[in-house]
C-alpha cells in the first residue's frame, strides 16, 4: 500500500524556535456563551482549597 499523500505544510521557520518564548496559539474563540456563563459560577478559590499528596 502506498504511503498516504500528505498535505503540504508551510516551510519551517529558522531554527532555534522557542527561544523567543511561547506565543499565543492561533485558535479561534469558541461560540460557547453558555459554557462561559457556567465558568463565571466556578468558585475562584477552588484551586486554593484543593489539597493533595504526591501520590503514585
Amino acid at each position, binding site marked *: 500500500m502506498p504511503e498516504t499523500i*500528505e498535505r503540504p505544510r508551510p516551510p519551517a521557520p529558522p531554527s532555534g524556535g522557542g527561544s523567543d518564548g*511561547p*506565543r499565543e*496559539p*492561533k485558535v479561534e474563540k*469558541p461560540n460557547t456563551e453558555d459554557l462561559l456563563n457556567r465558568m463565571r459560577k466556578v468558585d475562584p*478559590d477552588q484551586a486554593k*482549597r484543593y489539597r*493533595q499528596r504526591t*501520590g503514585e
Partner: protein
Amino acid sequence: MKVGRSASRRITGLETEYGCLVQPSNGGIPLVQQIRDWIFDQQRYGWIDLHERDWEEPPGNGGFLFNGGRVYIDMGHIEYCTPECARVADVVAYDRAGDRLLLQAIKALGLATRAQFFRNNIDHRTGATFGCHENYSLLRKAPLSEENVLSLLAFLTLRLLFTGSGRVGLGGHRPGPSSAGEQREAKDRVEFQISQRADFIENDFYEWVQHNRAIINTRDEPLADPLTYRRLHLLHGDTNVLPSALYLKVGATRLVLDLLEMDALPRVVLADAVRTLRDMSHQPSPPWRVRLVDGTEADAVELLSAFRRHAEIHLRGRDAETDAILDLWKRVEAGLAEDLGSLVGWVDWVTKYQLLDSFRVSEGLTWSDPWMEAQDLEYHHLDPERSLGLAMAQWEGPWAADLGSPAPLSEPPSDTRAKVRSALMARMSNGAASYEIDWHFIRLDEQQLFHLPDPFETRVPES
C-alpha cells in the same frame, strides 16, 4: 512492504489516580475510605483484599472488581485500574467506568456537597502531582536494540502534542541546569502549557515512580509469563478528559509498539528527550522545533508523522480498530500542522486553551489569576454536569461507542484473562472462607491455586 497483517495482540491497562477536593471534616472515617468501603460493601462491585500485597499495601486497602479491574487507596488518593483490555475502545470504556463508580459512590453516600473528584494530575497550590499510568504488554522477544529504544523514547516524548491535557502555569521539578533568575523568567513566561506532567519528568529511563520520574519506566514486572511478556509501564502521560484524546494516546502508542515488535520503527533520536518534553510543553503554539542527536533540528509534527506513516505502511487494513486509530491520528496531525482550532473537542490541551482563554478575555483576567487555576480544575471535573472538557467533547467515533453501557461497571472484557478473574470471583460468592487475588493468580481457600500467566487466556478453569 508489509511485514505483518495479523491483528494486534496487546494488553493495555490504565491506572488513574483521582484528584479530590474535600471540605474539612470533623473526624470520622476519611472520605476516600468511605468511598472505597461503599464499593466493596457486601461485594457490591468486588472483593476487598484479605492479604498484604506487594509494595507493602496492607490488607483491606483495596480490592479487585468484578469487571476485572481494581480500586485502592494510594497515598491518600482513590486509584482505579482498568482490567486488562485487548481493544482500545475497551480501554476508554473501562477507564470511564472508574469515573462512574466514584460518581455512584458519591451520590449514594450523599457526599456531593463535601467532595469533588477530578481527572487531572496536579495540585496547583502544593506542587504535588499524581498520575495516569499506562501499561502495555510487550513481547519479551521484541528487538530492544538501542536504536529501537531511542526511537520509542522519541515517540513517547513527541506524542505530548496530542496527549497533553494542558495546564495553567508552571510547576514541579524543572530538569536541566537553570539559575534562579532563569526559573523566575520561565515562570513569568509560561502562562499556559501543553502538559500537566512534563514539569515533573526528570529522566529518560528510570525504575521508580515517585521520584526521578522517567519517560520510560524500566521496572521489569510483567505480571504475566516472564518468558513471553514484558510490561511497558509509562507514567509521563497526562490524564485525558476527552475520549478521543485517550483513544488516540493509547491507540497510537500501541501501533508504535507493534512497529517496534516488527523492527519497523522510523529512526528518530532526540538530543535530549526530557528537555524536549519540557520545552515543547512550555510552547503551546507551533512550530515545535526539536533538536536531534546529530545536531540538526526538525519539526516535531513531521517527526510524529514519520511514525504514523510507518504504521500506515505496515499496519493499515489489518483490522477496523487499527484503521480508526490511523484515521484519527492523521486528522490530529493535520490539525497540529495547519489548524489548531480544528482540534477543539479532539485534543485536550487545545480545547482547554480555547475555552480558558475565551473566559480570561471576557473577564479581563491575567493567566496568573487564581480564577484561571480554578477553571483549569473545572475542566477535569469528574461530574459530566460540571466537566468543562466533556462539554466540548466530540462524541462521534469508536471512542464513545460503549461509554454509556452499564456492562463495564460490573462485567469484564470477554477477550482477556480479566474474564477468568471475574468468573473465579463470582465462584467465591458460593462460600470461599479465604482468598487471595492478584493480576496473575487467584488462590481460594488455601487449596485451589489458579495461575493466570497468559493475559489472553479466557477459559475458566474447573475447580
